[in-house]
């Protein structure tokens, strides 16, 4: 039981990080980026291919993360340009259609060029015992990285001037502009950050189990669930929702069977939405 909860926490932290990358983009511009998971998988492919070409794991991971940030920025400054000219529901809908198109293109290219690629990062240390539970070193390293990144994110958003500027755009874009914040610059920063988080997520995932090229869609759905349960645009909500869904995921995989886990996750998400329509921490009701 303890071991299952531990597994759930490890997974949940990673889900939280994945969710933050999607939720900040939504909160800031009303853009739901359905290509998010596919971009993260491109990072995994870059890491895997460059490691096979002889690069060390560290530099390979950094290269993958930078690639994801680059794709994310390109998406923001090309495909999404027409989206920013629209407002409200029009904007959300158009962003859904365009980014799902981008996701199909990326997934198609991956299947065509790298059909059997999968990223595995082998952390070759011995398992460690924590309060009687044997934890794989990969899980621990993944959790440590996720906690560190999560902590840095919270510090960034709460304590730095730039982080506050990002939150100001999420809460009231007109107010932010009147204070001298340039929303386009904030958007650029957030798209880069979103790519970086996707890249870090696949790297931590690969420390516990291989990431295949087909995982993009599943990552997007998971991020979407975390975002919706946590409240669109809420950063702390994403972390809390990630932890809850991670534990639900681990419990149902262990006690019921992994084939039905997705259904249980969706049911848990649906239940949250019924009880709290704007999510756990909806910034806007």
């Amino acid at each position: 039981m303890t071991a299952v909860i531990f597994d759930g926490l490890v997974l949940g932290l990673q889900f939280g990080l994945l969710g933050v990358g999607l939720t900040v983009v939504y909160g800031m511009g009303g853009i739901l980026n359905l290509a998010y998971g596919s971009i993260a998988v491109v990072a995994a492919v870059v890491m895997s291919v460059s490691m096979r070409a002889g690069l060390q794991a560290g530099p390979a991971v950094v290269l993958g993360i930078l690639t994801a940030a680059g794709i994310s920025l390109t998406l923001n400054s090309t495909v999404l340009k027409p989206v920013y000219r629209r407002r409200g529901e029009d904007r959300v809908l158009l962003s859904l259609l365009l980014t799902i198109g981008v996701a199909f293109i990326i997934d198609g290219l991956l299947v065509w060029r790298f059909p059997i690629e999968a990223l595995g990062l082998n952390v070759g240390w011995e398992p460690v015992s924590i309060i009687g539970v044997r934890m794989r070193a990969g899980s621990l390293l993944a959790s440590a990285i996720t906690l560190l990144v999560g902590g840095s994110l919270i510090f960034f958003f709460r304590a730095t001037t730039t982080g506050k500027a990002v939150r100001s755009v999420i809460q009231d874009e007109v107010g932010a502009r009147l204070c001298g914040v340039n929303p386009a610059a904030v958007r650029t920063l957030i798209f880069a950050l979103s790519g970086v988080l996707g890249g870090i997520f696949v790297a931590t995932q690969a420390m516990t189990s291989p990431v295949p090229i087909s995982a993009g869609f599943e990552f997007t759905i998971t991020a979407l669930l975390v975002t919706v349960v946590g409240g669109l645009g809420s950063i702390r909500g994403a972390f809390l929702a990630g932890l809850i869904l991670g534990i639900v995921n681990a419990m149902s995989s262990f006690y019921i069977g992994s084939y039905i886990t997705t259904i249980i996750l969706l049911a848990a998400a649906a239940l949250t939405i019924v009880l709290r329509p704007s999510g756990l921490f909806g910034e806007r009701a």
Partner: protein
Amino acid sequence: MLEVSGLSTGYDSHVVVLGVSVDVREGEAVAIIGSNGAGKTTFLRAICGLLPVSAGDVRYEGRSIANLAVHKVARAGISFVPAERHLFPEMSVAENLALGAFPNRPDPDQQSLVFDLFPRLAERRRQAAGTMSGGEQQMLAVGRALMSRPRLLILDEPTTGLAPRLASQAYESLAALRTLGMTILVAEQQVPLVLGLADRGYVLENGAIQLEGPSAELRDNPTVQRAYLGVV
């Protein structure tokens, strides 16, 4: 300091303000008065870059700021306090004020000036802006606008949603700001209040200037008395 000449603006193809000229000299307080729907808000929004200027020019300290991006107008030294306030509801009073100073770190001297002007904000500095009363939110909106040390403060209907006592208090604070040398341009429907503050005023109706002059003259003008001061 601010010279608006022949400004036209509106929403999409619908022109609301046509050929309006207004100027504000350094250290002055200038009022734009007019009834609901006269075009006051539209006019101020165009100056600040929130609406496109379709004709005419806006010059600030000698250079044109017509159609400049909102954040650039703000950084040039013009602070706009909209009637809807546009505060950051989930952030504390202190955080709202800090963002007013963006991209710089908040200046402690300026913050104490704001707290001297509005002691209430100092008491509530940890409270989330969205949970405050209308009067307190109005104070915060003005306080936030002051944090960037603006040279020109533009306010749209600062008394919106305020009880009469709070509305007079809002104007007392603005009068205090004037004595500190702040240049103020304010649009207002509550004519007696705003003429008490302003040196000069413009009467805007149907998107055009109908009358202009020193506040005392406007107060004595029979048209103004009939339309805005309730004198029969």
